């Protein structure tokens, strides 16, 4: 065989490996219609490693739609939901949004990643649609920190990353002012580094002299952390003033905690804290989750009101589990659309955009308003203190919940 052809398989393997490595995932949106029938397009990761998140978004959305209809919202209008797979990458999310928009589905909702939302928002502006995002939490997706929305037809329902970090700062600086030596483990991309950066800066501003003992940054999707965990275990100082901060979520958090248990990393620090989705990981650890402080936008025990009670009970009855943040975010997106459609009396995209500005929704987190200028839902952030307990519901004991109002972490609202 000629030498030039010998390495074709090798080159092919490398090429496909690189191509596969590039496969990621983002999400897409919803649609509009006439006064008789309105279709909302939900874009969410429905396959692969993030499928659980996508299922939660869609299930939450469907339950929100059902509750809104039961409450008489958008009466006489046939509101339907179509779902497209975001595949957790911006390219697929954009394609899903284009497909929806070209099918005249102009009301879009959902999506997981900030790159996906950033890619879809301009498309929606251009096509005259509407986008209500569920999970994506990049600081620049709404006008929360600038006072003016960057995308005229996009509305953000989840808290911005900085809001989550600042809520954690507010709580940790009060409860653990003596913990100053931080060991950081995070995803090596904008979210991970920004989350830690905001937290560190906030703690310093709050008067806690944060000292970074160690930092480990790993690629998103990596789960073999033996070297990092071993190195971290060797570098942790005195327990009373040491903390581990996790800027990870999902499989990364789970793998870290499982691999760190052999070295008792968590047992050797005074504080384990994280920002971002954590409850599903704690539930997955089936009673073995460590003592953790986590900030995000929801836990089922955070709100004592009828709307939350109905949300939790009905979701549990339908799916056999308690709702999590992603469910809550999907649920709120449906409530926002249904409230807007009810106000407008149709699915007209231009009118829905106007209705969403300053819209008030009755959420499980209380009566919340979408800021008319920033397009940010002014919702509280929830700081949860949890611990694995085989006897607790779903193996997770919620020891304490601190609800941080939006006004505490944002200048607006």
């Amino acid at each position, binding site marked *: 065989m000629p030498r030039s052809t010998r390495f074709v398989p090798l080159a092919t393997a490398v090429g496909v490996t690189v191509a596969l*490595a590039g496969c990621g995932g983002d999400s897409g949106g919803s649609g509009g219609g006439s006064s008789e029938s309105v279709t909302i397009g939900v874009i969410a990761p429905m396959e692969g490693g993030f499928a*659980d998140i996508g299922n939660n978004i869609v299930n939450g959305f469907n339950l929100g739609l059902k509750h809104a209809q039961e409450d008489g919202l958008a009466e006489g209008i046939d509101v339907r939901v179509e779902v497209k797979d975001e595949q957790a990458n911006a390219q697929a999310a954009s394609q899903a949004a284009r497909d929806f928009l070209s099918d005249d589905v102009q009301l879009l909702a959902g999506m997981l990643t900030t790159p996906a939302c950033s890619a879809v928002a301009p498309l929606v502006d251009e096509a005259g649609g509407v986008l209500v995002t569920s999970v994506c939490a990049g600081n620049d997706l709404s006008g929360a920190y600038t006072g003016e929305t960057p995308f005229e037809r996009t509305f953000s329902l989840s808290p911005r990353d900085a809001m989550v970090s600042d809520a954690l700062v507010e709580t940790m600086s009060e409860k653990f002012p003596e913990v100053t030596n931080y060991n950081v483990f995070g995803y090596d991309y904008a979210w991970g580094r920004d989350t830690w950066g905001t937290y560190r800066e906030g703690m310093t501003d709050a008067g806690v002299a944060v000292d970074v003992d160690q930092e480990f*940054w790993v690629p998103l999707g990596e789960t073999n952390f033996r*070297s990092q965990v*071993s190195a971290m275990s060797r570098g942790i100082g005195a327990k009373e003033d040491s903390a581990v901060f996790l800027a990870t979520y999902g499989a990364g958090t789970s793998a870290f905690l*499982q691999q760190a248990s052999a070295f008792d990393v968590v047992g050797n620090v005074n504080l384990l804290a994280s920002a971002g989705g954590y409850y599903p990981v704690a539930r*997955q650890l089936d009673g073995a989750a460590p003592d953790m402080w986590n900030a995000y936008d929801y836990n089922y025990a955070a709100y004592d009101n009828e709307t939350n009670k109905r949300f939790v009970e009905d979701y549990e009855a339908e799916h056999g589990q308690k709702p999590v943040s992603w469910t809550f975010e999907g649920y709120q997106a449906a409530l926002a659309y249904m409230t807007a459609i009810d106000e407008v009396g149709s699915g007209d995209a231009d009118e829905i955009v106007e209705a969403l500005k300053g819209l008030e929704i009755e959420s499980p987190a209380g009566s919340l308003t979408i800021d008319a200028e920033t397009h940010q839902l002014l919702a509280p952030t929830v700081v949860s203190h949890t611990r694995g307990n085989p006897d607790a519901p779903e193996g997770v004991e919620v020891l304490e919940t601190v609800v941080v109002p939006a006004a505490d972490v944002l200048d607006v609202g």
Partner: protein
Amino acid sequence: MGEFFAALIAGVAQGVPLFIVASGLTLIFGVLHVLNFAHGAFFMIGAFAFASLLGGGSVNVLVFLAAALAAAVVLAVVGAATDVMVFKRLYGHDHMVTLLASYALLLMLEGITAEIWGVQPRTQRQTPAFAGSFEVLSVRVAVYDVLLVGIGLAIAGGLYWMLQRTSYGQIVRAVATDEQMARALGIRARRVQTGVFALGAALAGLSGALIAPLVSVDVGLAPTFAIQSFAIVIIGGLGSVSGALVAALLVGISESLLISYAPDLAGFSLYIAVALVLMVRPRGLMGNPAITARA
């Protein structure tokens, strides 16, 4: 010195699981010349089967090992079925055809797995006997890492023994070297190929089972480990089991040393190694030129 020793041990612990995953992949390529992207799916199914058999609970050592072997057997059956239904029809075609078929199979198996076990991540608790760590020369070593290293070395030794020291290994090597000549000599090459494919899939299943207590068991496992194990096979040399072992240890130790001494470069060791090997020795560290050329 203590830090270096600790990093070395951590690197071996990091590298051996990669070898266990890659061993089946490189075995299949070495004999069948199939670049099997579905290997990651076999690995994932092994993890799911293992966690499913144990129900996520804590069990004793014997049950743990029996479940790991059962997962390997399940995957051997899946592998054999896959070979008969998919790859047997494609042997002799351009390797791109088998590569695409294996990628399609990966997607199918991911979908089937989601249908059977759902998309919700799950965990498998560690067996108490394998939990925790002990100290060697002032360095803490995880008990389970020692087990994984032992099993990894046993797999490497076992494959070497089988391929080099047994009559079956001779037959396998004959089929790998010249299938037509092997047939002419009366060897039932197709049966040998199916056997090797089943063995490779069983190794993937075993590795999935062994890694299950360390990771979140979900459908995201397949692409993650497929990419890494392909990189290990490329560095070690396509078709070389010993090369995969050397490559996995090299990558694991490099990564660990980078974490300790050059943290800014940590995370790049796999890519640096692939780039260097492709530039300096394109057939891989211990690649067999004949096997590479035949493909």
